[in-house]
Each structure stands twice: as structure tokens, then as C-alpha cells.
């Protein structure tokens, strides 16, 4: 393992008769602590891709390779069982074994170690995930967040070469999810283990991911750095899926009375402060939350009024996507009639208004 880069190659087709077909094609070099996000709406096929990587689904056609090993290849008749892939896999509902204690769950896959080594390893992982004192408890006695940590502990206890997480936080309630997002990010960094994470939550994708692949209708549509994919989707379809048009890096300079002041490349924005008070954040604004104004007089209740120059106008049917240069690229989704009324053309100066509540802050990963 060490600092070696891990290459993942996917090229397969798997169909679910009467439902949908997944055709995945991806080659990706994962660094030692790179997190690749498979992002897409439910039913897009991202879980099928993850399960195929885990060896829990057999595609009809194609191949899956990891580093120098072929895990699956229909032309060569290779099907490596999940047991032999050296992976850590965490299912969406955690799938903890109800008949085993926390320690029993974590040590379940360590049958190859001597009992002494096994105890050591379990203790090590228990410490890492702050589960001390809970070793004897049964899964049903734990809270959702604790269950998630036990499932993670179990998945990493074997020191796998690749971590596969299916919607790691979606089974939790919203406040817990926000808090655990930061914890999970820190843990993934500490583990120095490449991971592939499935999620439909864009905030999770931004918080956890180094690379993001947008999955829809069974295919991988676009792959890149999260902020690039979100702010520069390759086509309208992808733009619709990601749903957040503006993603820029910023720094929180002050927090007063629950409102954060953020500096984005010299421009000051006001946002509702997130629970996770880190200085470095991604500032995320949905296009439909941006209103255009003829003048920056501040005649609305919005906290943020930004002068900007129109850089690009593209049509989305009844809607138009207007990209402004406000010191950073800001995308507004407005109706076509607004474009005509305002007489918007490229190069024109205008004003954008965004409510503080519509400026979402996602802690940055590094």
C-alpha cells in the first residue's frame, strides 16, 4: 500500500430486466487518501457500480480492474469473489450483525489473525473511532451515529486496500449528518486509504470528495474536481443533476449572531453559519436562488448585493443560465422573459442578489 497510487478501471454493462441498464466506464488513479465520489440521483446506478466493485453484483459483460489485479472479466471468465478483493465495504444501512457485540462485529473478519493480534487490532480501531466503552454493547443499543462508526470500524479493521462506502451518512438525521461529515472527512485523511463513496447529497460530495463522478441513467457522465464539476457541468443534464451552479472557495473571516462573513477572492458575502465552523469553506449557491436587479440599491431583503458583468447566457428551455463575473463566477438561473426584460447581453453590468440563507457553506476537505 504505502504511497502507491491505485488505479481503478471499470468498463462493464449490467442490466436489470424491466428496470434499467448500467453502463459504467471509468479509469481513475486514486492517490493514497483520495476519495472518489459517485454522485447522482437515486436509481442512477451508482450503487450498482459500487456493488460491482465489491463483487456483490456480476455484470453481464465487461471488466473491472484494481491496481494490477483483474477482479472481473467476462472475456477471460474471471470473477474474483468479494472475499478475495481485499476491500472494506460499508452498506447504506450499515448491516451490523445483530447477534454480535460491537467488538464481535469489528473482529468478525479477522479470523485469519491469532486471538491476541485480533484483540490488538480491534482495540486499535475502537480507539481510532472513539468507541471505547461500547465494546460489549449490541448494535441495537447504539445510536445511529455510533452504528455508523462501528460499521466503519468493521470495514477498516482488515486494513483493506480500497474502501467502498454506500451513502455513508444518509441513514442519519440531519444534525448528526452534518457533524459526522467532518469526522468522516478527517478519518479518511488519517487512514491514507483510497475510497470510493456513493452519495446523492451534493454537500456530502463537496465535503468528502477529491474527485467526483456524476452518475445518471446508468452511465458516468463527467468526472473532475468537485468544484469544477459543480460550477462547470459539461452539459445541461449534468447541470440539472448537480443542482448547485456556483461553487467557489472562500474563507470565513467572522461569525456574529449566527451570520458568517466570508471572503471570496476579495468579495465579501454573508451566509448563515454552518455547524462545522471551519475557516476554509466551499461557498455554494444554487442558480435559482440568485435574483438579478437593475440597480444595487438593496431594495429587497437579501443580504448580498453584488455588482457583476454578464459573461455568458445560455438557454435551458424556458429558463436561461446567466453567468456573471462578480469577482468570482456566479450563475443565476432566470426565466427567458427576465433576460428579455432586462435586455441582458454579454458584457453588460448588472446586480445579483442572494439571501444569506441561500449561501451554503461546506467545510473544505484540505
Amino acid at each position, binding site marked *: 500500500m504505502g504511497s502507491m497510487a491505485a488505479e481503478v478501471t471499470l468498463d462493464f454493462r449490467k442490466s436489470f430486466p424491466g428496470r434499467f441498464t448500467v453502463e459504467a466506464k471509468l479509469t481513475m488513479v486514486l492517490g493514497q487518501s483520495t476519495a472518489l465520489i459517485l454522485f447522482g440521483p437515486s436509481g442512477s446506478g451508482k450503487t450498482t457500480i459500487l456493488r460491482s466493485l*465489491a*463483487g*456483490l453484483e456480476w455484470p453481464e459483460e465487461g471488466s473491472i480492474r484494481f491496481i494490477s489485479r483483474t477482479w472481473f472479466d467476462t472475456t477471460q471468465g474471471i470473477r474474483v*469473489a*468479494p*472475499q*478475495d*478483493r*481485499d*476491500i*472494506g*465495504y460499508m*452498506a447504506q*444501512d450499515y*448491516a451490523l*450483525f*445483530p*447477534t454480535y457485540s460491537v467488538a464481535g462485529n469489528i473482529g*468478525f*473478519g479477522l*479470523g*485469519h489473525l491469532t486471538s491476541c493480534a485480533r484483540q490488538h487490532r480491534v482495540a486499535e480501531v475502537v480507539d481510532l473511532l472513539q468507541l471505547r466503552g461500547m465494546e460489549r454493547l449490541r448494535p441495537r443499543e447504539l445510536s445511529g451515529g455510533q452504528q455508523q462508526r462501528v460499521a466503519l470500524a*468493521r*470495514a477498516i479493521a*482488515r486494513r483493506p486496500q480500497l474502501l467502498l462506502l454506500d451513502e455513508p451518512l444518509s441513514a442519519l438525521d440531519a444534525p448528526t449528518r452534518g457533524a459526522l461529515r467532518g469526522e468522516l472527512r478527517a478519518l479518511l485523511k488519517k487512514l491514507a486509504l483510497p475510497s470510493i463513496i456513493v452519495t446523492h447529497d451534493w454537500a456530502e460530495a463537496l465535503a468528502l470528495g477529491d474527485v467526483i463522478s456524476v452518475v445518471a441513467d446508468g452511465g458516468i457522465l463527467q468526472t473532475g474536481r468537485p468544484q469544477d464539476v459543480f460550477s462547470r457541468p459539461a452539459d445541461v443534464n449534468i447541470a440539472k443533476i448537480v443542482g448547485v451552479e456556483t461553487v467557489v472557495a472562500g474563507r470565513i473571516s467572522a461569525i456574529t449572531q449566527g451570520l458568517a462573513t466570508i471572503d471570496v477572492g476579495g468579495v465579501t458575502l454573508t451566509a448563515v453559519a454552518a455547524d462545522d465552523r471551519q475557516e476554509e469553506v466551499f461557498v455554494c449557491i444554487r442558480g435559482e436562488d440568485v435574483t438579478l436587479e437593475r440597480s444595487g440599491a438593496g431594495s429587497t431583503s437579501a443580504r448580498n448585493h453584488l455588482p457583476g458583468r454578464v459573461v455568458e447566457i445560455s438557454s435551458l428551455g424556458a429558463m436561461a443560465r446567466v453567468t456573471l463575473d462578480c469577482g468570482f463566477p456566479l450563475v443565476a438561473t432566470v426565466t427567458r422573459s427576465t433576460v428579455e426584460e432586462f435586455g441582458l447581453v454579454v458584457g453588460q453590468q448588472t446586480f445579483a442578489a442572494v439571501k444569506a440563507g441561500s449561501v451554503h457553506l461546506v467545510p473544505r476537505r484540505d
Partner: protein
Amino acid sequence: MTVKLSALTGMILLVIGLPIAYWISFSRWRWKFLIESVVALPLVLPPTVLGFYILVAIGPRSPVGQLYADLVGHNLPFTFEGLLFASILYSLPFAVQPFASSFDQVDRRLIEASWTLGVSRFKTFIKLILPLSVTGVVTGFVLSFAHTLGEFGVVLMVGGNIEGVTRTVSIDIYDEVQALNYAAAGKTSFFLLVISYLVLILVYSLNRTVWAAWPQK
């Protein structure tokens, strides 16, 4: 004699019934229902039909019967071993169906989690699936035991009625009634009734605490 036969039948069914049930529950083969139906056949076939075929199958003229005679030195029909063989076949669905339905109840995601932890299919079965289906397994064992206890037709066909060798309690009752010895028949019948009731109480109380594994399929 009867108890020994029932206990042996129950135990052997545990050994061969668990793999069959595992296969029925986990196989994705599309024609699997054909095998399921074969396993369930003894439920609907008259015992005489089953007994007849078993008799023919293990008789000295069949290859199976011949092989057995060559190996052991005597024929199977009208012996304890022959009777045991017939009982196993006859009680097969009573063991396999509760086993399989309890395996069906085990969440597949737990099994997948075990596989991705590097635990083999066999070890997953022993460490995870069996403990989760313990009531179904006990139910299958107890039901096959109880069913063998009360079987009549197959025993008569295959075992004959040899005192101390193949005469089971149910046949004893028949003999006593034929001999107009109602008092003895009544005593034995009552004994069988009480045993059967106790066994069913055990099965239902077990399943009540977890889930109803029988009858379900």
C-alpha cells in the same frame, strides 16, 4: 425403538437438510422450484405410495439395494436401517421447509457484509446465518422428530412389523386395536398424543418469541 428411530431421523435430517435448505434459500437457479417440489412431495403423497417406491428402490433387485447388501451383508427392507432411510425421506420436507424459510428471513445485506469482510461462504453460514435462524433449525429438528414418531403407512410398507426391530408405537396401536385390546391401545395413543402436544407447544412457543417459521411456505 420409536424414539431411537425418531431421534436418529431428526439428527440425520439436520445434517443433510441444512445444505439442501441453504441451496433452496440461496440458489438463483431458475429451475430451483423443481427441486423444491421434489422435497415437498412426501407432504402430499400417500404414505403407501412413498413406501412402495422406497421398498422397490432399496429392495434386493435394485442397484441401491444390491450395493447395500454387498457392503453390509443383508438387505435393507424390513430392517431398522431400511426404516431409517424411509423415515428420512418421508420427513425431509418437515425439516427442510422450516430451515429454508428461516434462512429466507436472514437479511441478505448481513451476508454480503460478511463476504466483503473476507469470511468464506461456509464460515458465514456457521458464524452468521445459523445463529440468526436458530429457531427455524430447532423447529425443523423437532417437527421431523415428531413426524417420525407418528408415522404409520411408510413404516408398515418398508419396515414390516417386526417386534423390537421395526415395530413403532403407531403400528403397536394398530395391532392392539386389531386384537380388540382397547385398553392397551388407549394407553399408547394417549402417550403419543401427549408427546405430540408437548412437541408442538415447544415449537410454537419458540416461534412465538421470534417469528412464525411454520407453516409458512
